[in-house]
């Protein structure tokens, strides 16, 4: 086919492509809300939820994932435009990571080092990691389907951002069940789980988000 014929062919196709925003956000958040709600209905909400959400230490269990969910999702949406360079959102994510590390370090300094291993291990490690990863993956999958409409020039990074956002949104819901008040525990395992969803997002993004 000659290029002129191709141009005539393309100009005949007047059907516009479908937008990424806001579909991708709904496609990511709806599965998380559904799987997360089912999870909470089965395993229950922690009884002291209201006091935990207002306590200066445990409030971070929601505050940090909330900001990370927002920034991860908006980063993934921004990257679906090929020319965008969303540096500011990366700064926000770096601030979240720094605050999490600070929270971990503060808690470590406030207790004898002999307790550190036990503090990190906690009692619900396996449930924590599998739940956050599982709920987060449902959002990653939904979001990826719609994000394919976009035109990212960084498919791995787009998938990573969507994974971080989905993992963080899943953490918001999981934290309503999880009774741990120990930052060394929740920073480590919430963080690892979110990162795991992010990495799975990066790997699948490289495969499915290529233009």
């Amino acid at each position, binding site marked *: *086919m*000659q*290029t*002129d*014929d*191709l*141009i*005539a*062919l*393309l*100009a*005949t*196709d*007047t*059907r*516009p*492509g*479908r*937008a*990424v925003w806001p579909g991708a956000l709904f496609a990511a958040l709806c599965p998380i809300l559904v799987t997360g709600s089912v999870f909470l209905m089965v395993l229950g909400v922690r009884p002291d939820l209201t006091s935990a959400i207002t306590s200066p230490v445990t409030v971070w269990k929601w505050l940090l994932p909330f900001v990370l969910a927002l920034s991860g999702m908006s980063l993934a949406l921004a990257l*679906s*435009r*090929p*020319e965008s360079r969303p540096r500011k959102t990366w700064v926000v994510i770096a601030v979240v990571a720094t605050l999490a590390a600070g929270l971990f370090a503060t808690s470590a300094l406030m207790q004898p080092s002999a307790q550190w291993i036990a503090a990190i291990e906690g009692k619900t490690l396996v449930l924590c990691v599998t739940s956050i990863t599982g709920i987060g993956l449902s959002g990653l999958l939904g979001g990826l389907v719609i994000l394919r*409409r*976009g*035109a990212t*020039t960084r498919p791995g990074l787009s998938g990573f951002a969507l994974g971080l956002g989905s993992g963080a949104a899943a953490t918001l819901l999981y934290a309503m069940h999880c009774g741990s008040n120990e930052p060394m525990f929740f920073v480590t395992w919430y963080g690892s789980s979110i990162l795991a969803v992010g990495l799975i997002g990066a790997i699948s993004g490289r495969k499915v988000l*290529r*233009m």
Partner: protein
Amino acid sequence: MSENRDYWGDLLRAANRGDAAAYARFLAALAPVLRGIVRARAGGIDSGLREDVVQEVLLTIHLKRHTWAEDRPVRPWVYAIARFKIIDALRRNGRDTTLPVDDFADILPAEADADPFQQRDTDRMLDQLDDRSRNILCAVAYEGVKLADLGRRFGLSQGTARVALHRALGKLAALRRKDQ
């Protein structure tokens, strides 16, 4: 004309409002620029192959044109897609055609005009499409069938024909991605 700062933007804005002629002019203005970029990046590969890359970029820009926001400059958007696709296509083609540029140093000037002749890739991909998609694309590209007549020709409503054409182009792009 293409030096005019927002000439491309004006055309694409008109295209978004349904002006197919403006859209064809936009793509036609784009093609030589893309050809130049591809030649600068890969002067060593044969001009037919280079034209294949140009076509692949045009197809991608077409399928992703909704990702351009009208309030943003159009050139950075075009170049971002072009750069990504050209590097991608050359890397894939590079596997089959690892020919050092030095060997062609003497013949390079002769291929200054990369005038489009029959291109291999697009036709090879057309052969792999399902019958209906291929027939629709060939009718429009080779016989100049208009969208209004496309439905009648294939026994579809006009809306269905429009969707079928769009899907067929999407399938064509997917085949190119998978291939090579």
